[in-house]
């Protein structure tokens, strides 16, 4: 504990001295606000900004036609997830040019002396659109009647992994589960919405942004604005949460940076919640069809996953993201045949992006939901079915049929600990008791054994870390990561201090400033501990070596004769010959090591188990207990890992039960009361959660840490939906679609009340 605080971040964040983008005071800074399309799809016939320009306090108002040099949204060629081919002919303009393709698309921008005045200007702008039919679902977009880009297909990408499965395999199987699932669109909803501040200086542009990948933002801004990278500095100060949603270069960022440069004034855009709910990134969005075949003993024979992904109005990272789902389709099982296909489809909704879990929740859900259905069909305990099919520990590294090379795992270990922690047998007895009672609410138990992937994709598995010794004896550690609440300052300072043998008070940590370190990657894909940690470890180790070499030269000793201990260099032969690290720097000059580290992909895993109780009359689901056993290898900071687990579980519960975006007939999101309509879980919705861990290190890094932080989004939803199905005895897997809102559960309960009580009436289950 530093000065009585458990985390270094706490001293400022608990006292009101954190510094988020909106807190940064820049003299003369102007506020931008955007005019957004109120229609989902239409031809843009005219935008009249003139009335806004007459509003007191408004400094300017522009539509696309007024800003000829405004660059479009760049393609993020991240890990091969998107490609020039996908994007060709489907340009995403920063301000809509002649067509709007989703409700909330930015059509014009107003800059005012403050946000109040900017919004006054927005209110005056007249947008004329000639509506076109919307297509807010994949099914509507696939029928071809609503092309988003003239002459181009709404399907932007079709790929597959694994080998197509011979039809005979399904015929031979004792049981084949066929099901359709829906991964609804979700709003990541960090408590701080997006925030961007551009400050033009003499020959540079400094950008402050709540962002997960400052170097990527710098590179993409530089390319778009046609500036050398050195002329842009990106700083990510404190960030109020990201969850994947703050990793891109958004239309608003480009517009504001462009205006700051052309107007020569500092301008910021602090997204408000209404904009965020309409126009910030959304995650998930898949229609899935599965077939899962097993023999009579429950051994899996084949699994097929077909994904129609909703990627929104413009093909961006979201177009390739479903490939994550496809590649992770194998899950935790030694299924010999697995085949997954992806079709990415444009719809008239805000483009999809990664959201915590990013492709893995969709994979885990489809498989784990199907496993419970299969167990039911086989009359087998779902835990036993899984145990029979797990990839055993001795088969790692394991090449999956869907092209992944799993590093390490002990899936049965996590399952066993979860069952024990839950008191699986006790709850099963309670379920039996309740089934026999006419007054007890039905209770169900659900399991979900997930495998995820952390660190990133090929080409993005590296990170940069640096360690510098200062003349005053302190050490600065730098990393290319960017925290949005993950305690990097605490964790990485401690890691570097421990590696150097120093008290952690001597280590300062700097990240999220492109001027601090030449290059970096960022914090997404659960990569910071796994990839950034070893980069810092390597740099600290190298610093010790360099310090010993310097001391050896100074003392004219062989390096082997120089010892390093707790920040002090000494001669092994003569204790009196010793130098503190700070003295060494003062004598020999600056001492800094910057390193690059490249990890392999790691595959964290675990088992989540849920117990739920359903009120069949209303369809409400109450989660009574949730157990999460996660294995992320070696934990660098167990408290931070547990915190991440708990937070991601809350978001997993949100997907399972509460969160979703309804659209009206015109294709506009129906969220008139914002967060009173898009329901994030509150304290009341949280069940008692128990978090446990097993530890199976990754062999690919010296620290053995795999990524952490997304497990709840990945593992929890299927556990809850399985539990609801178990409680109600729902045998048709198509009936329970997330979010399991009360009306959906009530209908499923009614449909599965054996369909026997014909002519069911209102008030049933009163």
């Amino acid at each position, binding site marked *: 504990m530093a000065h009585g605080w458990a985390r270094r971040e706490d001293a400022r964040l608990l006292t009101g001295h954190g510094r988020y983008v909106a807190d940064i005071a820049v003299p003369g800074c102007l506020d931008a606000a955007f005019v957004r399309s109120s229609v989902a799809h239409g031809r843009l016939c005219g935008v009249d900004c003139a009335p806004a320009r007459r509003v007191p306090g408004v400094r300017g108002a522009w539509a696309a036609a007024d800003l000829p040099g405004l660059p479009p949204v760049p393609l993020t060629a991240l890990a091969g997830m998107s490609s020039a081919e996908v994007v060709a002919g489907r340009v995403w303009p920063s301000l809509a040019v002649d067509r709007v393709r989703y409700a909330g698309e930015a059509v014009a921008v107003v800059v005012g002396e403050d946000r109040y005045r900017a919004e006054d200007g927005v209110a005056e702008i007249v947008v004329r659109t000639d509506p076109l039919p919307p297509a807010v679902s994949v099914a509507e977009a696939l029928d071809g009647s609503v092309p988003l880009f003239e002459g181009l297909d709404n399907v932007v990408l079709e790929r597959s992994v694994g080998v197509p499965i011979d039809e005979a395999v399904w015929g031979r199987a004792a049981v084949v589960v066929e099901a359709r699932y829906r991964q609804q669109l979700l709003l990541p909803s960090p408590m701080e919405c997006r925030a961007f501040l551009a400050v033009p200086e003499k020959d540079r542009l400094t950008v402050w942004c709540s962002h997960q990948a400052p170097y990527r933002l710098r590179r993409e801004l530089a390319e778009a604005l046609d500036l050398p990278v050195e002329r842009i500095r990106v700083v990510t100060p404190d960030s109020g949460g990201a969850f994947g949603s703050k990793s891109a270069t958004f239309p608003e960022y480009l517009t504001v940076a462009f205006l700051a440069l052309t107007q020569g004034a500092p301008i910021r855009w602090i997204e408000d919640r*209404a904009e965020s709910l309409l126009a910030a990134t959304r995650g998930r969005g898949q229609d899935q069809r599965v077939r899962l075949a097993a023999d009579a003993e429950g051994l899996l024979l084949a699994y097929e996953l077909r994904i129609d992904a909703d990627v929104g109005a413009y093909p961006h990272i979201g177009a390739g993201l479903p490939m994550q789902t496809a590649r992770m389709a194998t899950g935790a099982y030694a299924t010999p045949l697995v085949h997954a296909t992806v079709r990415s489809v444009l719809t008239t909704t805000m483009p999809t992006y990664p959201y915590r879990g990013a492709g893995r929740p969709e994979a885990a859900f489809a498989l784990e939901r199907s496993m419970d259905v299969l167990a039911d069909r086989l009359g087998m305990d779902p835990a036993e079915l899984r145990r029979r099919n797990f990839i055993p520990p001795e088969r790692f590294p394991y090449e999956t049929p869907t092209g992944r090379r799993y590093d390490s795992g002990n899936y049965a270990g996590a399952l066993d600990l979860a069952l024990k922690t839950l008191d699986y047998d006790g709850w099963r007895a309670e379920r039996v008791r309740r089934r026999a009672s006419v007054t007890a609410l*039905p209770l169900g138990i659900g399991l979900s054994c997930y495998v995820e992937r952390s660190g990133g994709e090929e080409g993005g598995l590296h990170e940069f870390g640096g360690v510098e010794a200062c003349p005053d004896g302190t050490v600065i550690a730098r990393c290319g990561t960017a925290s949005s609440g993950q305690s990097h300052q605490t964790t990485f300072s401690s890691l570097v201090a421990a590696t150097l043998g120093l008290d952690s008070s001597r280590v300062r940590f700097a990240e999220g400033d492109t001027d601090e370190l030449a290059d970096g990657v960022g914090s997404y894909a659960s990569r910071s501990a796994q990839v950034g940690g070893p980069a810092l470890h390597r740099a600290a180790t190298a610093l010790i070596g360099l310090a010993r070499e310097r001391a050896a030269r100074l003392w004219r000793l062989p390096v082997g004769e120089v010892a390093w201990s707790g920040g002090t260099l000494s001669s092994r032969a003569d204790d009196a010959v010793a130098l503190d690290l700070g003295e060494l720097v003062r004598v020999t000059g600056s001492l800094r090591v910057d390193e690059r580290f490249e990890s392999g992909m790691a595959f964290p895993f675990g088992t989540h188990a849920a117990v739920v109780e359903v009120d069949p*009359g209303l369809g409400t689901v109450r989660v009574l207990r949730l157990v999460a056993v996660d294995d992320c290898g070696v934990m660098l900071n167990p408290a931070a890992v547990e915190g991440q687990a708990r937070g991601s579980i809350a978001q997993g519960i949100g997907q399972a039960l509460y969160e979703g975006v*309804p659209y009206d007939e015109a294709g506009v999101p129906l969220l008139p009361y914002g967060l009173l309509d898009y329901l994030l879980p509150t304290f009341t919705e949280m069940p008692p959660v128990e978090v446990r861990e097993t530890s199976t290190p990754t062999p690919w890094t010296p620290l053995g840490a795999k990524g952490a932080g997304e497990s709840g989004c990945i593992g929890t939803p299927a556990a809850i939906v399985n539990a609801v199905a178990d409680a109600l005895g729902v045998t048709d897997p198509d009936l329970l679609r997330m979010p399991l809102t*009360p009306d959906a559960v009530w209908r499923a309960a009614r449909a599965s009340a054996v369909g026997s009580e014909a002519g069911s009436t209102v*008030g*049933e289950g009163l």
Partner: protein
Amino acid sequence: MKPAAFDYIVPGTVGEAVGALAEAGERARILAGGQSLILEMRCRRCLPELVVDINRVQGLDQLRVEDGGLQVGALVRHRAFESPRVAPGPLGRLLSRTVVNIAHPPIRALGTMAGSLAWAHPAAEWGAVAVGLDADIELRGRAGTRTVAAHDYFHGPHRTECRPQEMITSVRLPLLDDTVGVAFVEHRRTRAGFAQVAVAVALTVLDGVITQAFIGLANAADRPVRAQVAELSLIGAEIGSSFSDPVIFGSALSDGHPFGHAARIAAEGDADPCAQPYADVEYQRQVVAVLVGRALCQAASDRQAHAGHDGSAGEWR
């Protein structure tokens, strides 16, 4: 989400406030708790040119029992109803069970009952209570004061009998005697959301026979409604001990039970639900039926639990 500009006055008396309204009419809005108004202004769905802040008007914060009723001034905050002692007997219990469903403590620190009725959102809890108990709403304009019964007051979503030149000065709720059992039951998707349906019940039971019933429904129509047909069906019904499980979930109330019967009538006859996301009309009717049934059971339990206090019936049935 910043409000548009407006003029702002802080009258010291009701007379000054209604004087300002008389001048400005539809261009003005009364600001009391502001917990809905300021949100609407932030969304620029409500664009008053004049905001009349009545928070410093003397006397509007009064809450008192007189002439068989609870007189609730326009500035009485939701928070005041958190204690059942806010009104004697069953009314206090009903109000305190209702208020915990309204938003959360910081909103309840500022929001007011009168403001809620003025905003007239169909899902608002106070609407169900006001209509269910047939409260009187006092409207004041420059021309004078008039009293409107709650069932005449609500015209539809955000539409009421209150004219632009008028303001609510108080709400009067009838006291309930100790032969009345009360309940308030609400269903919503999470604690943060609006009520999908809410039900307020006051049931008079004498010697095991229902002699009077009030059932108010929120979000079961485009405005709060009273389930009058269901109420009628209950009059004269003998209720045995079948409600003795205070909250019946799994066990079905049969159609033969007066509560089950009334619940179905309320759902199919009295309610006129509007489809909304995650709740079509069929589901809304189902919820009305379930909640009315449960609220009636709870009200009967409440009546029984407080039977000792009425000094007459003692133990009934």
